[in-house]
């Protein structure tokens, strides 16, 4: 068990820079999720921590040790890969024992630890099968098992759930979370799925185009997104963004409707509000023309445009609501749920 320090990590491939000065202090036993769209550098970052990718500048330390110059084998980490990367010619037992065998553990000890890991993951009856004889979920467990038998300081997960079907993914997500809490091993998990990120992580690092947009707890990211990117990335359906102008303590939307707020700011801003925070209110200032709606059972999603503009707006209404395309609904936006972002830099403007 160990804390991980990332100090000003950068990565360049030739002239292309893929990571810019990533800083993070990850505490012992913490579960950190790195989340971002494809190509944002999240897998590269993880692979740099694992030692599979060279570090251009900056430092990675695990425990109190700088590991920049160490081989992956010497970093005391275990990694779960997206495609599981099980050795196809070995049985499940051999797959799990491989790392221990190389570290020259006594036979009885290997057997005990494999059995223990198999019990935790409930794969005891598959120990003598080959990976190809297992289903996706079982392979996933074996890959986890191979990581935990080694009893490493750090677990690294590289999108391990993305090859599973939706139901299994939710189940495995919970199991990974439980397992991590039980073993108390510092873990870093890479995903592009924001729901996965929100449910798994003690803290989330949102990466975009090589920059860390925000690093904080899921609720911090949801309640106070630091940038427009984080605001749009965290939460489903995504936050509504309306172009607006701030002046003299009011925010004026594109169709001329003014809302109170934005003290001390003037000029063009982006007004953000989450679909679930728009409150139906017949006298509310935000009027939305309905285009279509999706009844999801627990809630109804209204897709429309802000009256008088072409700006798309999504509203999440609780329960069953029947809407007519073409009708106009009014909503109010509680001040606490409003977000303002600088139109140029995308940075959050604190009220």
């Amino acid at each position, binding site marked *: 068990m160990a804390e991980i320090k990332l100090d000003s990590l950068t990565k360049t491939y030739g002239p292309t820079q893929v990571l810019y000065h990533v800083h993070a202090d990850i505490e012992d036993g913490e579960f950190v999720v790195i989340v971002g769209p494809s190509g944002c550098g999240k897998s590269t970052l993880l692979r740099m921590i694992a030692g599979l990718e060279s570090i251009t500048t900056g430092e990675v330390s695990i425990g109190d040790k700088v590991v920049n110059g160490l081989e*992956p*084998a010497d970093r005391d980490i275990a990694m779960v890969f997206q*495609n599981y990367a*099980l*050795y196809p010619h070995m049985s499940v037992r051999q797959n799990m024992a491989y790392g221990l065998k190389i570290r020259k553990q006594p036979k009885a000890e290997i057997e005990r630890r494999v059995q223990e890991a198999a019990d935790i993951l409930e794969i005891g009856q598959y120990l003598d099968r080959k990976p190809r004889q297992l289903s996706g979920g079982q392979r996933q467990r074996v890959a986890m098992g191979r990581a935990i038998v080694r009893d490493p300081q750090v677990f690294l997960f590289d999108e391990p759930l993305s090859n599973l079907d939706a139901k299994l993914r939710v189940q495995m997500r919970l199991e990974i979370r439980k397992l991590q809490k039980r073993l108390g091993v510092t873990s870093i998990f890479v995903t592009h799925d924001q729901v996965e990120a929100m449910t798994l992580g003690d803290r989330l690092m949102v990466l975009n185009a090589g920059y860390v947009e925000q690093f904080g707890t899921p609720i911090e990211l949801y309640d106070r997104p630091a940038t427009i990117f984080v605001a749009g990335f965290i939460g489903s359906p995504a936050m509504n963004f309306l172009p607006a102008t701030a002046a003299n303590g009011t925010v004026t939307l594109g169709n001329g409707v003014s809302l109170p707020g934005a003290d001390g700011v003037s000029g063009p801003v982006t007004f953000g509000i989450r679909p679930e925070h728009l409150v139906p209110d017949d006298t509310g200032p935000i009027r939305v023309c309905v285009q279509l709606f999706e009844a999801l059972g627990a809630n109804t999603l209204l897709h429309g445009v802000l009256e008088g503009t072409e700006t798309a707006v999504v509203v999440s209404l609780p329960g069953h609501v029947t809407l007519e395309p073409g009708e106009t609904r009014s909503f109010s936006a509680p001040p606490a749920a409003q977000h303002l972002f600088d139109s140029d830099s995308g940075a959050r403007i604190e009220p």
Partner: protein
Amino acid sequence: MLKRVHFPPSLLPYLLVAPQVIITVVFFIWPASQAVYQSFLVEDAFGLSTEFVWFENFTYLWNSRQYLDTFGRTIYFSAAVAFLSMSFALILAGFADRVIRGSTIYRTLLIWPYAVAPVLAGALWLFMFNPTLGIIPFMLDNVGYDWNHYLNGNQAMCLVIIAAAWKQVAYNFLFYLAAMQSIPKSIIEAAAIDGAGPFRRFATVIFPLISPTTFFLLVVNAVYAFFETFGIIHAVTQGGPANATTTLVYKVYNDGFIGLDLGGSAAQSVILMILVIAMTVVQFRFIEKRVQY
């Protein structure tokens, strides 16, 4: 009910397959059947009289010490060529797999030997190893080793093995490299994280995973060494000294065209034909079934 499609009887399909059938008959079936027929005949050296003798040619071969020696020598030669060229190709491919910069140049250069004609390959090695002119005997002489493959049968065998293996390295290299590159990179990375160094990874992960390729190459190389090394042997040693490098195929040529024993030579060809058929069966039977994951 399944409906069967009926076409009106027509000449066209027969015409379309005719070229292939004609080629097969003229170039494969006819010569093969001629060889089988010849193997039952004994002919005098001038071709003036022939006699039908059934299996006498075969029983003669079976009892011929020389033929059995040649058989053993060919197996030794094939095994040595296959082992040498495959192990060397495996090492080269193992390194090429790790090369990142300039890998195309490296690969292209390694493939070149395959484009060299067997006789030319033989001539190259002949010049290098020529006891009076060659650079290698000169260097060996400096360290006190006397090289003369015109007199020393073992040295002659060594030389044809090296020449034949060199030619085949490129081919084996290509297959090994392709096999190695088809192994998912993450498996190798997983082994690295599990603590296996490069050699250990090679021995415990890469080599077992490319075993289907190894098996395939084993058959291909054996066939190559058996049947396609005539040019090299002919250029380098002509089967000598004292038959030390005469393989089965070389003996077919030697007995038939130099010794003018057409019947005996044909009988040897038939035996080789049976061997090829057997090897092909082995190849098809096992290659797709065994050592697969």
